[in-house]
């Protein structure tokens, strides 16, 4: 490893600060955009254009009373939001969000770690994320939470399968699990062009993994109040919020990395390209939230198991066949 530990620590610290800010402003931007879509104004009171709204929200949440319901499993109840936030933040470690840049004469790689099983690490983190949710749902001793948690775990593991299968074909074409290598493999042609079906399957599953509309069943507020985090208040609730938006950012960043050439792009610096592509995805998530109603649970399960999973397998066979035919 060419970088020394100090540089890594600084990078991690800076990245986390950036991520937290990005999450806060993703929420703000989402609220503003959705307001526009719904002929409203959205938050515009705190600071110019309401720009300080996220800060005010966080401050408010810090000074809210932290409640633990009677009958809750106290340790699990305390750790569940932390677990959700940790997996959400840590997943970003393997995403390359820019080329190597020169900063004060030091060469800085714009990723935390380019490990050779990067893709598997992402899977691992998103699989762990379900623990935060299901433990929160179970430990609250609240029926809505329980239903939300159970829904969520069933949903997330069901969509994990087609998601994994859809990405195998990318690995096949890139010949590596390292995200850095996958980005470099797209220097000439983005994988979205080569494998559009893989992308569609991946993205549908990713939305389901992040519990966003139209798959926002675990926290369907018109059915289950707030689902798994019904009982949570204060910053613990904010940690779930952080986890959810981190998941959105991570799956979007993954989509950019795997299918849209990562940070590569002409003229502009790499990290800017990355931000632009990422913003597009986040806008798309917002757009869907403002547009689509929610599926029912059995429909969701049917879509995952009976449509996406066989489709992903078929897609893999076809891609593998094509790669073999082209003498891969």
């Amino acid at each position: 490893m060419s970088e020394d530990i100090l540089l890594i620590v600084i990078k991690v610290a800076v990245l986390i600060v950036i991520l937290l800010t990005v999450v806060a402003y993703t929420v703000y931007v989402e609220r503003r955009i959705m307001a526009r879509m719904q002929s409203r104004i959205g938050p515009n009171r705190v600071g110019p254009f309401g720009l300080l709204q996220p800060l005010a929200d966080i401050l408010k949440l810090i000074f809210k009373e932290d409640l633990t319901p009677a009958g809750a499993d106290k340790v699990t109840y305390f750790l569940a939001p932390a677990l959700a936030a940790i997996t959400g933040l840590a997943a970003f470690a393997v995403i390359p969000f820019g080329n190597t840049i020169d900063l004060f004469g030091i060469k800085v790689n714009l990723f935390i770690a380019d490990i050779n099983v990067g893709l598997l690490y992402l899977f691992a983190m998103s699989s762990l994320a379900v623990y935060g949710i299901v433990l929160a749902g179970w430990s609250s001793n609240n029926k809505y939470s329980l239903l939300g948690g159970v829904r969520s775990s069933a949903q997330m593991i069901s969509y994990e399968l087609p998601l994994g299968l859809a990405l195998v074909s990318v690995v096949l074409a890139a010949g590596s699990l390292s995200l850095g290598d996958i980005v470099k493999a797209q220097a000439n042609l983005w994988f979205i062009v080569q494998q559009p079906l893989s992308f569609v399957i991946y993205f549908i599953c990713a939305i389901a993994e992040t519990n966003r509309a139209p798959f926002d069943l675990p926290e369907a507020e018109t059915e289950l109040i707030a689902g798994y985090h019904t009982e949570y208040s204060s910053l613990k609730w904010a940690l779930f919020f952080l986890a959810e938006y981190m998941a959105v950012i991570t799956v979007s960043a993954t989509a950019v990395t795997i299918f849209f050439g990562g940070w590569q792009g002409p003229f502009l610096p790499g990290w800017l390209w990355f931000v632009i592509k990422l913003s597009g995805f986040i806008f798309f998530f917002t757009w869907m939230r403002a547009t689509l109603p929610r599926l029912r649970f059995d429909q969701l399960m049917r879509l995952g198991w009976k449509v996406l999973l066989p489709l992903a397998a078929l897609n893999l066979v076809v891609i593998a066949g094509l790669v073999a035919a082209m003498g891969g």
Partner: protein
Amino acid sequence: MSTEVKVVSPAPMTVATPLKDAAAVAARINEKFANAASVVDGSLMVDSSQLVAVATLLRDDPGIGADFLEDLTSIDWPDRFEVVYHLYNLTRQEGPLRMKVRADKADPRVPSTVPVWPGADLMEREVYDMMGITFAGHPNLKRILMWEGFQGHPLRKDWKEAYFEEEKKPFDQRWPEGALVRAENRTPFKDNIVLPSGFDPTKYTPPAEDNVPLVEYNQPLSGEMKSQTLIVNMGPQHPSTHGVFRMRVRLDGERIVDLQPVIGYMHRNHEKIGERNAWLMNMPYTDRLDYLCSMGNNFGYAIAVEKLMPDIKVPERAEYLRVIMAEFTRIVNHFFALGQLLSDMGAFFTPMLYAIEEREWMLDLFEMASGSRMMCNYARFGGVARDVPPEFMPLANKLVNDRLPRAIDRFDDYIATSEIVLARAQNVGILTKEQAIALSTVGPVLRASGVPYDVRRAEPYSIYDRFDFDIPIGTVGDVYDRYLVRIAEMRESVRILKQALRDIPAGEIFAGRKGWQVKIQKGEAYGRIENPKGATGFYVVSDGGTNPYRYHIHAPSFINIGALGTMAKGHTVADTVIILGSVDIVLGELDR
């Protein structure tokens, strides 16, 4: 997408029908059951000992065919109780037949008609709760609006509410020497409250397990595995119960095993307050029933009371204004209902806000006419409160001819073509034609199940016989049909509005006596209109005095909620929420 809803135009009711001729019906009954029925003041009086047999005859006899029990209520006379039934035939579009049954003052007891008309279930419970009449044979005779354990029956004439002041308004004692003293300020628990012995209201905590039974509590679940079911309360504080409505559900995973609607959280004894009020004082009070459709409520109440004022002829212009307001109200309500339904489906507020955007324009019109956007208080006995200002007609015309048809189409386009909406709404919450009639459902719920029944056509009130419009009906009776019927009804409303705005004459808008006290002749009247949520009936009984002797409201939300359990059973939690949304309830009139 073009609607799959059928549009039909059933012929208007002919005048002399068996169901209006109580004497003929009584004769038919007495052929079978000697001396079971007589006619008193134009109503069919049935002997309570033979009620169930007579009711079965009324329903099944092809010459009578009273298959639809619209309303069931009761009156507390000084010497007796009377249970009043309003019966209709939906296929021949006939009615009403007013049937009465007398009950003893000391131990009021009447056989239950639930076996004949299942829709009587909630209405009989309401009468039991509010008037204390026992319905023998009712499957689940429990309090409904008041809580179990409540003492007394609030609609009885001898019942006095907390802070009772006087029998009739205006209360003289509010102004003893010109200064206002409220009863609430005198003592916190006034002396007319009877508490059970040893009960201290300040130390009361409600019990954890409430005594609303779930019918299939002990039913074994399917499958070999003995997993447990979960009882969950949805409501009263729940985002999608449209107010303080509560569904107590038993869940097997996601699936509803049993569902029990629990109501009464917003109960304020509207009918008793209405009896304390003078006749006209109830007009603004009806606004608060279905607070989205105050114009319609005013209209219905005015029609009911005007039936007891034979010398009043409502001027043409006022009739037109009433119809215009009522039809705008329908559009307002349906927009709101559909927005709400889609919001329940998970479309995060966007359709709701689009719907509200259109609604605001019509509320502007209401504000111009009445000075208020929601609590309009517009109708009067013999006309309307005030004429519309000059800027009303241009805006109304613009909306009707331009904006609203486009808005309805756009709304329909956005929503009805969404695959997710179709997947969620189709074949969910099916109510068959037979069930819909038997459960006495009204309005879009009834019509979506394929019954072409609309009060505007069946029993044309005001000037509805002049307008050309169709009645949309559904074919399946699911959530999606209810959605389509509402969309189609909005289009029909626009049609009526176009005709009304074209034909409205100039002239007087009020023919009654100005002033808050009106002369109402002795008698009883049941006036009903087709409110957006369904037939809304006002049953008023006058003893010739300054206040109503009895003032009863047949609320569509209340009736339709009786069908909720039938529609929801076997579906999932998510379905239940949209089924409730498709019924379209407003708690203001559900709990009264």
